[in-house]
């Protein structure tokens, strides 16, 4: 499906608001949206929600033979997929430019920065190494896919446990999770991408653009850093022309943001570890809040109840007496009561006139049921 074009009014409105330093969701220029990280039951599975943008990350591993020119290093493979449920514009054939850009950025951010120790993934040099595959699926697109995807990738990698392997001479034994506890990957540092959107030829910049802001932006600058303030990747895209001091300023802001996000990730991982150790419930089902109405307020309307008794008496006096007087029900077992002696089954004899009588009986039964309720 073709993307709904953005109307000129909306575009102008967004740009004017940005000029006045206002964002549609009330955030400040350097504010991130709410980040929520939840883990699945398996190790290595997580969902990251950045505002409404949602990315699912899953890590899996396999023993393969290594690449010829890197015989002692494991293989890391990243794959980001833009699921069709994320946005109407994502169709199987159409996404190539964006997909290539995002995938390459993720690869460079995570592989070239050597965040995972690939030498520790080697089992038998030249013959068997671990291939770690990180699959990321974008479930909902509300802007800033790259940040959410990078957080999901690094969280999934930190959460993942690979099966334990032991090598004795030529023999390689692969232990199942039941035999020996799976081993976490050795991660040197956690690179996190921070996106900056530029507007009006670089005059205004925003951190973490949402989908509308992405549509009107001139260009994007992505800086991936870790908490030690080491820059792992910088990528400028779109048609903007940057100046050197803009880039330096953005890197300082990115440093601050990355520290906050890294703390959040550590906390989430710690919580999950605690829950699993104590044997509590974990997994996606547990992290979704159950449906409940948390608040439904109505203003207390003042009602004059002084003459309620008189009014009630009037109503009762003027009301017609009930059509049928029924004896008290006989209680056979809890939940089963008999009223009257039972009516002959008249199914199959229904005609219009009799149908009306049926309806009347229906209303009578309603009254009778009400009276039963009051008695019991």
């Amino acid at each position, binding site marked *: 499906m073709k993307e709904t074009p953005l109307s000129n009014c909306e575009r102008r409105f967004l740009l004017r608001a940005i000029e006045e330093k206002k964002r549609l969701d009330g955030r400040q220029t350097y504010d991130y949206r709410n980040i929520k990280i939840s883990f699945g039951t398996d190790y290595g599975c997580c969902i990251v929600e950045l505002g409404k943008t949602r990315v699912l990350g899953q890590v899996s591993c396999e023993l393969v033979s290594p690449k010829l020119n890197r015989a002692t290093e494991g293989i890391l493979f990243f794959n980001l997929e833009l699921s069709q449920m994320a946005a109407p514009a994502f169709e199987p054939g159409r996404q190539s430019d964006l997909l290539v850009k995002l995938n390459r950025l993720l690869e460079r951010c995570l592989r070239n*920065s050597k965040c995972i120790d690939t030498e520790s993934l080697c089992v038998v040099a030249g013959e068997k190494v671990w291939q770690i595959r990180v699959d990321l699926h974008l479930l909902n697109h509300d802007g800033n896919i790259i940040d959410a995807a990078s957080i999901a990738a690094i969280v999934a990698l930190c959460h993942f446990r690979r099966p334990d392997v032991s090598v004795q001479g030529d023999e390689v034994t692969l232990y199942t999770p039941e035999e020996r506890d799976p081993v976490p990957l050795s991660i040197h540092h956690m690179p996190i991408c921070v996106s900056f959107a530029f507007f009006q030829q670089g005059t205004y910049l925003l951190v973490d653009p949402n989908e509308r802001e992405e549509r009107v932006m001139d260009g994007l600058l992505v800086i991936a850093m870790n908490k030690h303030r080491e820059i792992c990747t910088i990528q400028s895209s779109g048609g903007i022309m940057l100046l050197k001091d803009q880039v330096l300023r953005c890197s300082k802001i990115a440093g601050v943001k990355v520290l906050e996000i890294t703390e959040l990730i550590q906390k989430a991982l710690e919580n999950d570890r605690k829950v699993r150790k104590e044997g509590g419930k974990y997994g996606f089902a547990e992290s979704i809040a159950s449906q409940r109405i948390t608040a439904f307020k109505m203003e207390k309307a003042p009602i004059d109840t002084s003459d309620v008794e008189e009014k009630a008496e009037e109503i009762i006096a003027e009301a017609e007496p009930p059509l049928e007087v029924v004896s008290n029900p006989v209680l056979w077992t809890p939940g089963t009561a008999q009223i009257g002696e039972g009516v002959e089954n008249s199914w199959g004899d229904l005609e219009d006139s009799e149908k009306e009588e049926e309806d009347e009986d229906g209303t009578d039964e309603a009254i009778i049921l009400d009276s039963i309720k009051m008695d019991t």
Partner: protein
Amino acid sequence: MAGLELLSDQGYRVDGRRAGELRKIQARMGVFAQADGSAYIEQGNTKALAVVYGPHEIRGSRARALPDRALVNCQYSSATFSTGERKRRPHGDRKSCEMGLQLRQTFEAAILTQLHPRSQIDIYVQVLQADGGTYAACVNAATLAVLDAGVPMRDFVCACSAGFVDSTALADLSHVEEAAGGPQLALALLPASGQIALLEMDARLHEDHLESVLEAAARAARDVHTLLDRVVRQHVREASVLLGD
């Protein structure tokens, strides 16, 4: 290779250059008669060829035509014999697609696309030998080719790569220096205004050193601009001599 010093104590790099020194650049414009514009550049051992067709009518789907601007279409291909080990796919793999997108982004910013609405400008770049700094060589070659084609641009687009070893910023990395795994920065600059058309960096670099690396890359890009300017003037002089002016 363990023990390979990228920067010796006296300040010399593996190929004998100083930290801020560029490799020898040789360039020719007007290499092909068939294309609207073409150029060949050699930066040290990195050899790149660029060809420009356009501005011409949009090929393929008319729907892609932009009502107010020209469409810039870039394709990057590196020959199978360009690297040490034979490459299986010259183009169509992820890296080539990414390079194509980056070139497009660079040139969309520099070419005055408003002057040619509803048309298309094709830039094809072929790398014949990749010895480090391939993106920079491609951008420099494409700039010369676009100038040869007579397509109006805001300014030259000059690119250079930079790295960081032993607290010194190196300019114009060769393949050995890139493969060593240190941080690499590729910068495309419009020299007159100092605006950055594309900035790309890989591998870990501490934030404090970012400024020095950016500065080294910008200085190197300006040096490239001086050289390219000389090449263009020489070409124009030759062409006008042939015309008999």
